[in-house]
């Protein structure tokens, strides 16, 4: 079965033993890009897939991957899923709502991606009904469930600084007698988007300026339990897993229901595969090919391979995703449609780097000593070169999950009440309403309620919706959330420029 969309030219890899190529020349119409677990197909060195804005490319630097027997692609658990189920190459190694809806239609809801454990709103619901999977199908959200109270990295229970009450429970899971907070095994369920498996040298890069400290929170960074080395804490939405290895173990147990665990060989194969993947948008319907020598040098998947990881680029004169001068237009210049779109992207890049806004009430940004509010541009937080992540690491309470700013709908709502002895949340105090306590579910700390680790900007076009809770359906909506949250007063042109900029990454 053809897996790869081959409309655009193959990207020549100039590294190692990699071979260039697009395995199949299927056209976009009628082509099913879904990668089923256990298919045994070969994932080529360069695999390109169409999306709404153009196409995304997944590079396998080590060359074509024979997926037969490969633990990333085989259903190694009891529910028929593999890692690839939720990290689809066609969706930039995450998964989009469009893909999920198509999969529901094609399989009548029987695909393992809809597994009761976390592919439904709650395992207790009738699994053959669409409504039982509404959060996945409408918002791309999987159920993430935590034993409550949490257990620390040392294996000892953590005494939380707050109590949790369920205020609204639209999925029924948090009040369920088996799966809920008051069950025999108290569990809290929140709902999140899967992250990109790709460009991981950036995601795992440890802050080279402040290590061994997480400079913003004044804490030591976590450590890899096997090596004792400091870790980035940027892998998960709540930074709960320190390494790719621990993430793979956890995902196998929870999402794949592989209760026997992963063998050392399986773990090694998964990590090796994940670590050589690079993902970025490679073609734009309006701007054209993003991989040719004349485009801005930070675009395309090869740029992700070639660039250095862990570099901070948060100054007005720096270029977070490389310079975009190649696409800048002279004022008054006559431009064709493609050139005008490229100029818009270049303006968006410039806005992202230099447009200052008053950033206010963001835990783990305004609290780091810079003052509240602080006038900075987007790169003040999104500062890691080539990815737009935070190098520090990047868990912050932007307001995407906490009231009053959260715009999430149809999610459970919790009331968290912090102990008088705890250090309160700096901008919400001791009683906080949230759809997802975020990092606080791991640490039990009041001040970290709602803190979510930011994710990379590459391949965005391939994987809507956005934010950890899928509350922004489009890239434009992402921009509009920031516009409202920080009263940016963006013009229509600026919103469009920023949207266009994000769509080519």
């Amino acid at each position, binding site marked *: 079965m053809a897996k790869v969309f081959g409309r655009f030219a193959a990207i020549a890899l100039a590294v190692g033993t990699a071979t260039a190529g697009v395995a199949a020349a299927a056209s976009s119409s009628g082509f099913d890009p879904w990668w089923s677990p256990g298919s045994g197909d070969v994932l080529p060195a360069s695999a390109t897939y169409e999306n709404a804005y153009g196409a995304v490319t997944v590079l396998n630097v080590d060359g074509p991957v024979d997926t037969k027997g490969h633990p990333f692609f085989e259903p190694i658990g009891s529910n028929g899923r593999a890692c690839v189920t939720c990290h689809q190459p066609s969706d930039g190694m995450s998964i989009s709502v469009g893909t999920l809806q198509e999969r529901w239609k094609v399989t009548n809801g029987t695909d393992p991606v809809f597994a009761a454990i976390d592919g439904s709103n709650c395992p207790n619901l009738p699994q053959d009904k669409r409504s039982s999977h509404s959060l996945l199908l409408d918002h791309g959200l999987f159920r993430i469930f935590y034993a409550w109270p949490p257990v620390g990295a040392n294996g000892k229970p953590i005494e939380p600084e707050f109590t949790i009450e369920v205020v609204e429970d639209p999925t029924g899971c948090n009040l369920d007698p088996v799966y809920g907070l008051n069950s025999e095994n108290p569990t809290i369920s929140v709902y999140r988007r899967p992250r990109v498996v790709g460009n991981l040298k950036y995601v795992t890069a440890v802050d080279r300026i402040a290590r061994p*400290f997480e*400079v913003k929170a004044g804490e030591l960074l976590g450590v890899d339990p096997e090596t004792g*080395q400091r870790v980035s804490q940027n892998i998960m939405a709540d930074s709960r897993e320190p390494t790719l290895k621990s993430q793979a173990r956890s995902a196998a147990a929870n999402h794949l229901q592989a209760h026997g665990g992963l063998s050392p060989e399986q773990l090694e194969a998964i990590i090796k595969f994940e670590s050589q993947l690079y993902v970025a948008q490679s073609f734009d319907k309006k701007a054209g090919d993003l991989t040719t020598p004349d485009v801005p040098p930070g675009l395309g998947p090869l740029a992700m391979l070639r660039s250095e990881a862990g570099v901070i680029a948060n100054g007005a004169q720096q270029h977070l995703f490389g310079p975009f001068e190649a696409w800048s237009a002279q004022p008054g210049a006559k431009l064709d449609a493609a050139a005008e779109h490229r100029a818009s992207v270049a303006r968006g890049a410039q806005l992202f780097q230099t447009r200052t806004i008053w950033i*206010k009430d963001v835990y783990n940004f305004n609290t780091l*000593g810079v003052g*509240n509010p602080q006038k900075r541009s987007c790169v003040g937080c999104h500062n890691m070169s080539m990815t737009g992540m935070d190098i520090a690491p990047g868990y912050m309470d932007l307001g995407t999950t906490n009231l009053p700013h959260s715009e999430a709908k149809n999610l459970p709502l919790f009331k968290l009440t912090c102990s008088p002895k705890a250090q309160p949340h*700096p*901008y919400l105090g001791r009683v906080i309403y949230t759809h997802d306590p975020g990092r606080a579910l791991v640490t039990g700390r009041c001040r970290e309620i709602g803190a979510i680790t930011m994710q990379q900007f590459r391949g965005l076009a391939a994987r809507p919706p956005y934010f950890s809770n899928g509350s922004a359906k489009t890239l434009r909506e992402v921009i509009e959330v920031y516009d409202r949250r920080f009263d940016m007063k963006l013009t229509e042109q600026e919103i469009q420029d920023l949207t266009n900029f994000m769509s080519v990454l």
Partner: protein
Amino acid sequence: MKGLFSLAAAAASLVVSGSAEAASGDRLNFLACPQLYDTLPMNCWAAEYNGERYFIGAQRGPDSSYLPQMKHQVLVEGVVTDAPRVCGGIVLSPLRVSVLPELDLSCDGPVLSGDGLTPPTVAGRSPRTPLKPHPLHEGIGSFMLSDVPEPPYTTKQFRIDFDFGTDLLVDQMQKRMIEIWTYTKLAGTPKITVEGYTSTTLLSDGNRLAEPEGLAERRAKKISGMLENLGAPNREISVTWVDSPEEPDGVHDAERRRVIVTIEP
């Protein structure tokens, strides 16, 4: 004032009383809501006390410590100078500004116009002397490094300062932790003693502002835990703490919010 901290009337002896006009050299300790002025090239923070405006920080100034936050009161502890006003405010030096941890929505306000105000001076950071590389510092971030001391490695004390009411380790104190850890490595297998303290601040209006009970313990345990986490090669770490042992004097109160680490080779 929120309930976490206790205020009690007391006589002020060494600090300016609430009704007196402050003169150069006078020490002022007061609580206030911060004000933020939109000035270029740097924004400036100010606070008012007894009808007078004081300059309390420049956003990203070379010496800026932890800056004020809207929705929080600040504790300002400083000495009045006769330096030219900044942003219309009297300059205090030395200056300590602590953001009180409790939320105080009465301290939320708009960014004020900086038109006509003298902005903070943009002073360049002094060039950093290149550090001598040392094997101990492999893997340590560039910001956290300082020169490794030469032998002999005798008993040495380090002080870690805290802002009022918190155990947050600000960036300069994170750097100090690396200095301490480095010294423990150089000192062989030393005995390490960690002593945590809180203090009560004597305000200029005669009131006392006490840090919360239990904070001295949290500070001490945090520092000893960090030393263990960093892999300090100790024989033992002795950890003690005591809340507000000294009588506040309005002069030394800020420096008493501390942890003392003693390294004995």
